[in-house]
């Protein structure tokens, strides 16, 4: 049974089509793996075995009838941020206690329409605010990776920590995730998986619990580049329910895999060499450049001078939007209610009890920077800096650069309950230093595993592309993957 969970989506698709395996068998194998492993990893906050078996049975019927969809019978995990009809949807927050929506997010509906099977809902940082998955109301996720010779528990990254851990530990064939400042790419890098945040507007945000609306994008986390391409093709769509959904046809991303890099220009931004970055990160970056050069691409140095301002600008824009989006949690329409002496007291007590520390911190920052007298100094200044960050990329692309190669994270996975990080929120924020620029500019970004560090932990490289040129990222990432290989943790559970 466990052998079935080793199959990639592409491999499972072949076997299902050839009727060598059934969708029910495949789903049962994953449900058995989740039952055995989830108590240790804590990747799922809810498992939906009955729904999964029912969906798998329907998939088998469609396969028998010759009506299989693009993801027919493929068992997936869904981040708890996506609304799933009548199933636990809480953004891993206490304030959405008991919330089971009566509607389905566009992205998950697209997956079910293509025949995918839902295994359950995945753990995440509360409201997607975090880089370690430790702010979840449901407790931290444990990274399936451990340093060699060490028993220390590591974080899987965040906010899509449950998605990344479930994919790495083979508790789902692939997972949905979301990325506001690096929440797909950083956990993918920490778990040796592949994650892509597409261009803003490519995936509908309808039915995804909002964090920072001008930055949020959905994308997949998968075991390899091809699987990520297969998943994104199904997740992306043009959706009238999201006014920022872009009216462009969704290409066949898988077709880009295997295409030549000859004549491509890859930009290397000098500003991504930061103080205190481990030697190994620089080494893996150099290695990546060599692989792309060997594949026929030209490596050019570029400058993105406003890079260092992306993170501070993000910590104004994102909390500002969050403080507005999270105003709706007031104990009236859904979730938790804590009674008070009047309605305002009820709001304040509900929100105090329902939100965790990191969420409260961001609501406070956001409320402050939007409050009278501070709007121009903080919010307006940050939005202007954001224009400059985007302009840096536009200049690089106008000079002929096709894609940009950077490290994905400034380190490999760190320990659970790291005291140094817990005592200083800004230190934790620095995890997103290489990823956050991409959200600020609305560009597509992808994290692909490139090697292991001296502790035996995965390191990722990030590829940044032009708007709506995800295909360039898939073909380039595939070259890196061919050279670096794929990475799976040693089973200790």
């Amino acid at each position: 049974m466990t052998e079935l969970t080793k199959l990639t989506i592409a491999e499972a698709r072949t076997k299902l089509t050839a009727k060598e395996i059934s969708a029910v068998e495949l789903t049962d194998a994953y449900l058995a793996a989740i039952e055995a492993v989830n108590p240790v990893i804590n990747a799922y906050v809810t498992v939906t075995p009955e729904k999964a078996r029912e969906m798998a049975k329907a998939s088998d019927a469609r396969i028998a009838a010759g009506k299989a969809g693009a993801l027919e019978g493929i068992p997936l995990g869904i981040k708890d941020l996506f609304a799933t009809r009548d199933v636990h949807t809480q953004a891993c927050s206490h304030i959405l206690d008991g919330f089971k929506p009566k509607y389905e997010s566009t992205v998950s509906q697209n997956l079910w329409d293509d025949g995918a099977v839902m295994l359950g809902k995945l753990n995440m940082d509360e409201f997607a605010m975090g880089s370690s998955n430790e702010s979840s109301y449901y407790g931290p996720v444990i990274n399936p990776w451990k340093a060699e010779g060490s028993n220390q528990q590591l974080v899987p990254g965040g906010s899509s920590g449950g998605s990344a851990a479930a994919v790495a530990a083979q508790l789902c064939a692939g997972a949905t995730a979301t990325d506001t400042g690096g929440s797909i790419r950083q956990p993918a890098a920490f778990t040796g998986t592949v994650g892509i945040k597409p261009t803003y507007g490519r995936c509908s945000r309808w039915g995804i619990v909002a964090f920072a609306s001008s930055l949020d994008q959905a994308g997949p986390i998968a075991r390899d580049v091809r699987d990520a391409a297969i998943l994104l093709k199904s997740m992306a769509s043009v959706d009238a329910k999201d006014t920022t959904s872009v009216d462009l046809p969704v290409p066949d991303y898988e077709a880009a895999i295997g295409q030549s890099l000859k004549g491509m220009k890859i930009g290397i931004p000098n500003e991504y060499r930061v103080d205190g970055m481990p030697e190994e990160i620089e080494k893996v970056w150099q290695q990546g450049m060599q692989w792309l050069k060997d594949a026929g691409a030209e490596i050019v140095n570029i400058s993105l001078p406003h890079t260092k301002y992306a993170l501070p600008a993000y910590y104004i824009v994102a909390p500002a939007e969050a403080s507005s989006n999270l105003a709706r949690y007031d104990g009236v329409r859904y979730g938790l209610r804590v009674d008070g002496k009047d309605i305002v007291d009820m709001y304040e007590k509900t929100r105090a009890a329902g939100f965790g520390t990191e969420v409260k911190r961001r609501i406070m920052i956001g409320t402050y920077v939007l409050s009278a007298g501070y709007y121009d100094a903080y919010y307006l200044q940050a939005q202007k800096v954001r224009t400059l960050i985007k302009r840096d990329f536009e200049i690089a692309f106008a000079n002929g650069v096709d894609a940009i190669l950077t490290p994905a994270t400034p380190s490999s996975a760190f320990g659970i309950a790291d005291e140094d990080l817990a005592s200083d929120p800004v230190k934790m924020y620095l995890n997103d230093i290489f990823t956050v620029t991409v959200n600020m500019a609305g560009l597509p970004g992808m994290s692909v595993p490139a090697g292991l560090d001296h502790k035996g932990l995965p390191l990722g490289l990030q590829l940044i592309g032009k708007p709506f040129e995800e295909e360039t990222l898939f073909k380039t990432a595939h070259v890196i993957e061919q050279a670096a290989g794929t990475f799976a943790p040693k089973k200790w559970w």
Partner: protein
Amino acid sequence: MSVDLATVKRVARLARLAVSEEEAQKMMGELNGILGFVEQLSEVNVKDVEPMTSVTPMVMRKRADVVNDGDKAADIVANAPSTTENFFMVPKVVE
């Protein structure tokens, strides 16, 4: 710019977050840490730079002004902590 305890309490009130004295103290330190970090933005020359309003240059698509959904009051109140006859129930607001 840094915030004092009174400002923290005022912002918490604006954000409808009940905070204890102890929490407000702790938040003050953390907020000042974050505000100190974002302070570096003031050194960026933004003369003649337009603030970003949309990452993709696009005109917001508008829906047709028609009724295309509805008749689901029961669904809308299904998750509310307190309801009666498809109304949300809240503590008395008007005496």
